[in-house]
C-alpha cells in the first residue's frame, strides 16, 4: 500500500510537464521543488535538531552568489557547482561554530545576525556582489550534455535533485545519526551523560542542513539566472521557516507541502487576489488553530479520526 502510494506520487511528479498545461505552471512546479529542498534543509535544524535558524537564506544566497561569481569568471559548470557548494559548506561550518554557542533564543538571534551580515555584504560590498543591482548569469548549465534551457528539462533536473534530497533525508531520519540528532533535541543532558558529543552532532546536522540549503540556492540561481540581496534578506529566511512550520516540523513531507503552499499562494493566488499576503497569513492562522503540528501531520491525524468515526462502533446495548 505504502509502496503503491509512493510509486503513484513519483509517477505524478515525474510527469508534471506533460499534464500541468503550460510552461508557466511547469516553472511554478520547479520553484516548488527547489524551495522544498531548501525547506527540507531548514527542517534538519528546525525540526529534528530543535534549533530554529533565521539565517538560512544567508546560506541559500551564498551558494547562489558564489555560483554566479564563479560562472561569470568563466569556469565550467562542474567547478561552479562544486565551488558554490564548497563555499556554502565552509560558511555553514563558520556559522555553526558561532551559532552553536547558544541554543533556543540565543541560537535564533545569532543566526539572525549572521544572516544579516550576509545580506549586508550582498548589499554593500559592491565590487563583489554588484550591490542591489545583483548579478546575472548567462544561461543554465547542461549536465551530461543535456540542455536545461526549456522549462520541462529544468523541471526534470530539479526533480532528480529533489529526489536525492528526499532520499538523503529519509536515510538521515532512519539512521542512528538521525536518532542522535533527535536525541540532542529532546534530551541534550541525557545524551551528554550517555557519552554522545552533543555539540559535534549539532555541528554535523548544521552542515547537512547548510549543504541542502546551498543546493537549493544553486538551483535558484540556475532558475532565475539572477541573484540579488533580496534572496538573502531576513524575510527569505522567515519564509523558509514558515514553510517548515506550516507543513509540519520534523516530518519528511511537511516541508514539501509547506513549500508548495507558500509558492502557490505567492505566485498563483496573487494573480487573482490582491491581498494575497492576507490570504497567506489567514492560512497560517488556520493551520496554527486547527493543526498546530503542521499541515501534513495534522491532516493525517484528522484523516485517522475521520476513519475511526466511520468504523461501526460497538453499541451500548451489545
Amino acid at each position, binding site marked *: 500500500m505504502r509502496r503503491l502510494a509512493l510509486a503513484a506520487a513519483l509517477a505524478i511528479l515525474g510527469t508534471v510537464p506533460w*499534464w*500541468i*498545461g*503550460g*510552461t*508557466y*505552471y511547469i*516553472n*511554478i512546479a520547479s*520553484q516548488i521543488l527547489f524551495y522544498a529542498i531548501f525547506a527540507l534543509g531548514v527542517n534538519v535544524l528546525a525540526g529534528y535538531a530543535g534549533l530554529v535558524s533565521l539565517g538560512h537564506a544567508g546560506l541559500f544566497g551564498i551558494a547562489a552568489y558564489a555560483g554566479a561569481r564563479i560562472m561569470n569568471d568563466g569556469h565550467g559548470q562542474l567547478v561552479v557547482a562544486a565551488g558554490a557548494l564548497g563555499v556554502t559548506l565552509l560558511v555553514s561550518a563558520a556559522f555553526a561554530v558561532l551559532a552553536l554557542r547558544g541554543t533556543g533564543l540565543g541560537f535564533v538571534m545569532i543566526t539572525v545576525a549572521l544572516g544579516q551580515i550576509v545580506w549586508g555584504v550582498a*548589499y*554593500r560590498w*559592491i565590487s563583489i556582489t554588484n*550591490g*542591489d*543591482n*545583483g548579478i*546575472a548569469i*548567462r544561461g543554465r548549465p547542461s549536465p551530461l550534455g543535456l540542455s536545461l534551457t526549456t522549462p520541462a528539462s529544468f523541471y526534470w533536473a530539479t526533480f532528480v535533485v529533489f529526489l536525492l534530497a528526499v532520499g538523503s533525508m529519509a536515510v538521515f531520519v532512519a539512521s542512528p545519526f538521525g536518532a542522535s540528532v533527535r536525541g540532542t533535541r529532546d534530551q541534550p543532558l541525557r545524551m551528554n551523560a550517555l557519552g554522545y558529543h552533543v555539540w559535534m552532532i549539532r555541528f554535523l546536522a548544521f552542515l547537512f542542513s547548510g549543504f541542502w540549503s546551498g543546493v537549493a540556492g544553486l538551483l*535558484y540561481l540556475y532558475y*532565475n*539566472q*539572477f541573484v*540579488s540581496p*533580496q*534572496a538573502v534578506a531576513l524575510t527569505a529566511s522567515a519564509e523558509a521557516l514558515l514553510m517548515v512550520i506550516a507543513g509540519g516540523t520534523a516530518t519528511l513531507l511537511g516541508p514539501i507541502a509547506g513549500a508548495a503552499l507558500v509558492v*502557490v*499562494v*505567492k*505566485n*498563483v*493566488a*496573487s*494573480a*487573482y487576489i*490582491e*491581498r*494575497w*499576503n492576507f490570504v497567506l497569513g489567514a492560512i497560517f492562522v488556520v493551520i496554527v488553530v486547527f493543526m498546530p503540528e503542521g499541515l501534513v501531520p495534522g491532516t493525517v491525524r484528522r484523516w485517522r479520526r475521520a476513519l475511526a468515526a466511520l468504523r461501526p462502533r460497538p453499541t451500548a446495548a451489545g
Partner: protein
Amino acid sequence: MAVKVRRREFLAGAAGAAVTASLAFPAIAQPKPVRIGLLTVKTGPLAAGGIQMEQGTIRFLKDRNHNLAGRKVELVVADTGGNPAGTKTKTQELVERDNVDMIFGPLAAFELLAITDYTAQAKMPVLSLAAAEDMTQRRPNPYFVRASGTSAQYMHPLADYAAKELKFKRVITIADDFAFGHEQMAGFQRVFEDAGGRVVKKLWPPLVTPDYTPYIAQIGGVDAVVQGFAGSNPLKFMKQYQDQGLKLPVLGGGPAGDEALLKSYGDEAVGMISVSAYTGDLDTPSNKRLIDGMVKDYGNIPGLYSAGLYINGMVAEAALEKTGGKTDDREAFNRALRSVSLVDTPRGPFTFDHFGNVVGTFYIRRTERKGDKLVNTTIKTYPKVSQFWTYDEKWFLAQPVYSRDYPPLKS
C-alpha cells in the same frame, strides 16, 4: 465571480486552470484584443509608487475607452511584491500564460535587471520607468523602451542649473544608499564639476533609516545640499532638515519633488528646487486631461509614476498606430515603439535614442506655496536632453557606470 472561484481551485489541481482561462475570455468575432501586462508593486514598502503606476495605466486606458488603434485593449496587472524573484515569476506568468503583447513596468531597477535577459529572449517589449543606467547603456536590451529617463539623466540638467544659474560652487550630496541614489549623485557630480563646481562630501544613509540626524549634522560650509531620496524618504529628510534649523538651499532629484508627494509636505519643502521629467504645471492638453482624470478618479494629482505610465500608454498607442494595430510581428512592433516621436504628452515632446532611451524635456521647478497647497513652478526647461547629456556617446560609454565611488571625490 464564478470564474474567480473556479480559478482558485487551481490550488487543488492545476490542470483545470488552462480550461477555465479559455472560458474566461469567450471568443468574439473581432480582432483579438491587445494585451498589456503591468508589472507593479502593490504590497510591501514600494507599494505607494506601484499603485500610482496602476492608476496611471488605468486612467490612460479609460481616456482611450480601452481602444488603441482600432483594437480593444486588455490590461493584466501582476503584483511582483517588490522582489526580483517574484518579478521573474510574474513576468513568466504574463508572457507564457497570459500571452501579453507588451509589458509596462516594473517599478524598481533591481526588478528590471532580474528580468531583462528573459524578456529579451522572449522578444517581449518592456516599457519601464526603472532608471538603471546600464539598461540603455552598457547592457542594452533591444526590446526595452524607457520614456522617463535614466537616474543621472534627471541630475545632469539640475547640476547645470546649480552651477550656471544659481552659481553654486560647493555642495554636499545626500541620497539613499542604493544604486538609484548612487547613479543620481554621480551624474550630478560629473556635470557640476565639469561646470566648475565641487562636490565636497557625499553622504549615504541606509535606505531604511528612521533618523537622518547624524547625517544632517555633517552638513555645513557649502552653498547647497543635493538630496536624491526616493519613496517617502524625501519627506522624512526635509522634515528633519528643517527641525535641525538648517537654512542652506536644497536641490532634489525626480522623486524628491514629485507632485504626488506635495500634499504630504509642509512648509519645509517651500523653496526646494527639483528636477523632473514630468511637471504638473506643464500646459499641454494631454497633461490637463491626465490631471483632471486623476483628480476625478482618485482625488490625487498625478506624479512621476502615474504620469510615467500614462505616457507609456501613449507610446504604445503611437506604435500601434504605426503598425496598423498589429503586434504579431514583435520585431516590427518593437521598431515602431522605438521610433515613436510625440509632441503633446504630459511631459512635453520627446523621441527615443538608438538604445530606446528617451530624449526629451526636463524641468527645473521651485516648490512654492499657493494658498493652502504646495505647487511646483517651472523656472527653467531643458529641451531634448539625452542620457549622455552633452558628452560624446562613445566617450560616455567608455567610462565606468556611475556608482557610489565613481566619479571619485576630488581631494
